[in-house]
């Protein structure tokens, strides 16, 4: 049974619909990411779960109980804000203790749990520091400890890593995942960073313009994007215009001079999506010319001009000779490495 359930949730501000028809069920202990560009409604959805906004339509249930009927202060959710929103006039320990104090936890137990929470996020010994005297990463950890110490039913993370520099962000990602695995708290992460979503989550909810584009494991959303938006948003992709040729038997999928047996259930104009790292140089296939070749250490990046438009190809640096700029090449890929969608408006 679903632990946290969102049932056709929608939010309107005036006439503008920010979130529409959002349905999701989250299992206990799951790590879910809401992924999408800014303005896609992911933060609004998170704020509705937190209770800072009321949904216009739909229901949010936690363990079968209607969450929207409960005041945000009584929901018992842990939230880490993008700006951390630490209390600057309190020390790290006082910040973490605040939620326990509000719950009437006795002093002795409180200080024990605060110490344990700070130790868990690697801040043992920082109890008496004020937030403004801590680095961004340390403040981030205090905010995490403050949210986790109340043993929340769900942990909500609102772009928690976006204010950190790239290296620290990567470290925190690993640590966040480890902490979440240890305490087993059901977690929802809002992010616009596809790498962050992919490396942390059990499942990703890809959103665009207030709607869910796809729900799936990181691998599913990457390998089998449900829409053009998903394939564009999650990593780089090549979209080639093709057609399904029914005049020959068996029917064939044709994109330029590349052809393969057509997948079932589709006809007419289609879009063929292939990830750059799945394209190889062969003897047959899409004919193209290499415009630029960029060496990036462990791989080569080729920008090509193909008969179906521009294409990007990534090849592992396996020590073999690679085609040079200006070379004419044939681009080829295995049929299982592409996703084919009906092309609209053609």
């Amino acid at each position, binding site marked *: 049974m679903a632990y946290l359930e969102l049932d056709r949730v929608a939010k309107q501000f005036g006439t503008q619909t920010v979130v529409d028809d959002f349905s999701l069920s989250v299992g206990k202990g799951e790590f879910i990411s809401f992924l999408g560009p800014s303005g896609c409604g992911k933060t609004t959805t998170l704020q509705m779960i937190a209770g800072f906004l009321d949904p216009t339509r739909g229901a949010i249930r936690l363990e079968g109980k209607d969450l929207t009927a409960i005041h945000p*202060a009584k929901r018992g959710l842990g939230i880490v804000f993008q700006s951390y929103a*630490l209390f*600057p006039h309190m020390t790290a320990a006082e910040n973490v203790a*605040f939620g326990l104090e509000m719950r009437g936890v006795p002093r002795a137990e409180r200080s024990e749990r605060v110490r344990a929470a700070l130790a868990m996020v690697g801040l043992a010994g920082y109890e008496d520091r*004020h937030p*403004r005297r801590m680095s961004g990463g340390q403040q981030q950890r205090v905010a995490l400890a403050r*949210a986790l110490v109340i043993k929340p039913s769900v942990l909500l993370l609102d772009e928690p890593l976006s204010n950190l520099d790239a290296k620290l962000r990567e470290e925190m990602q690993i640590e966040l995942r480890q902490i979440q695995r240890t305490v087993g708290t059901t977690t929802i992460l809002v992010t616009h960073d596809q790498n962050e979503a992919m490396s942390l989550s059990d499942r990703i909810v890809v959103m665009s313009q207030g709607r869910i584009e796809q729900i799936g494991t990181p691998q599913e959303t990457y390998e089998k994007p449900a829409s053009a938006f998903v394939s564009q948003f999650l990593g780089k992709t090549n979209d080639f215009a093709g057609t399904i040729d029914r005049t020959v038997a068996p029917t064939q999928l044709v994109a330029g001079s590349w052809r393969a047996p057509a997948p079932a259930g589709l006809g007419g104009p289609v879009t063929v999506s292939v990830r750059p790292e799945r394209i190889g140089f062969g003897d047959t296939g899409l004919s193209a010319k290499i415009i630029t070749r960029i060496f990036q250490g462990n791989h080569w990046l080729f920008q090509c001009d193909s008969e179906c438009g521009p294409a990007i190809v990534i090849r592992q640096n396996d020590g073999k000779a690679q085609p040079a700029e200006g070379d004419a090449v044939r681009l080829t890929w295995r049929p299982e490495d592409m996703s084919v969608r009906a092309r609209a408006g053609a």
Partner: protein
Amino acid sequence: MSMAAEERSLRAPWALTAPALMLFVGVLLIPLAMTVMLSFHDWGQYKGIEAVFILKNWHEIATDPYFAEMFWRTFRIAILTTLLTALLGAPEAYILNRMSGRWKSFFLLVILGPLLISVVARTLGWALLFGGNNGLVNKLLMSLGVMRSPIPFMFTETGMIIALAHVMMPFMVLSVWAALQRLDPQIENAAMSLGAGPATIIRRIIMPQIIPGVLSGAIIVFSLSASAFATPAIIGGRRLKVAATLAYDEFLNTLNWPLGAAVATLLLVALVLIVIGSNALIERRYAEVFR
């Protein structure tokens, strides 16, 4: 670095600040020093000012209880005005900060209003509201049976405090507002998610963070109220004098300039000491919030 270049880099800051420095010295430091000097001069009904160095004026201020009463009244009015602006201004700023854009700018203008009106018009306006039996508010309160006799306003400390609090309010509101701007916009949500109710959020989260704003507003209001001249002059007149009107009277009515200078100097020194002292206290106490 060569010697010449080093010398040049030392001279440059002085040369660049010289014009402002000279203006500052000319219009502020020299008159101030002359006032202090003046307070040590002698004065007589028939001989006028004598440029000697005596402690007569200071001795008079220190021993005559009349002056003690004046200064005590001045600071009592300033303290009560400060308390009144803090009690009304801090909630006012908090409410203002939570308003939506259009209303916020409208009410900000209302709060700034007193500063845009001439002190004479504003104070006489208050006198029309409260002054004597015919004051609008007094008439209303009496006809409603709330009180039998009118609230005394003219020539009273109450009147001065009300009128001063009105014009000082913008300084308090703006100062608290500046402190509120530094607040993390999510901080109330953060406290709420941890289980705090509205009263707890204000008491435990908002108040401690705006107290420095209240205190710096209080310093401004206190020093401006203690040295205010126009409002006490109109409401208190010659009957209810404060330090500023006292100095004015010594200068222009009694013509005892040295005594007036001594009063003015004492007021200045007392204010500077109070402001510097409380500022240091605040900055030490709230070091973490100010960072």
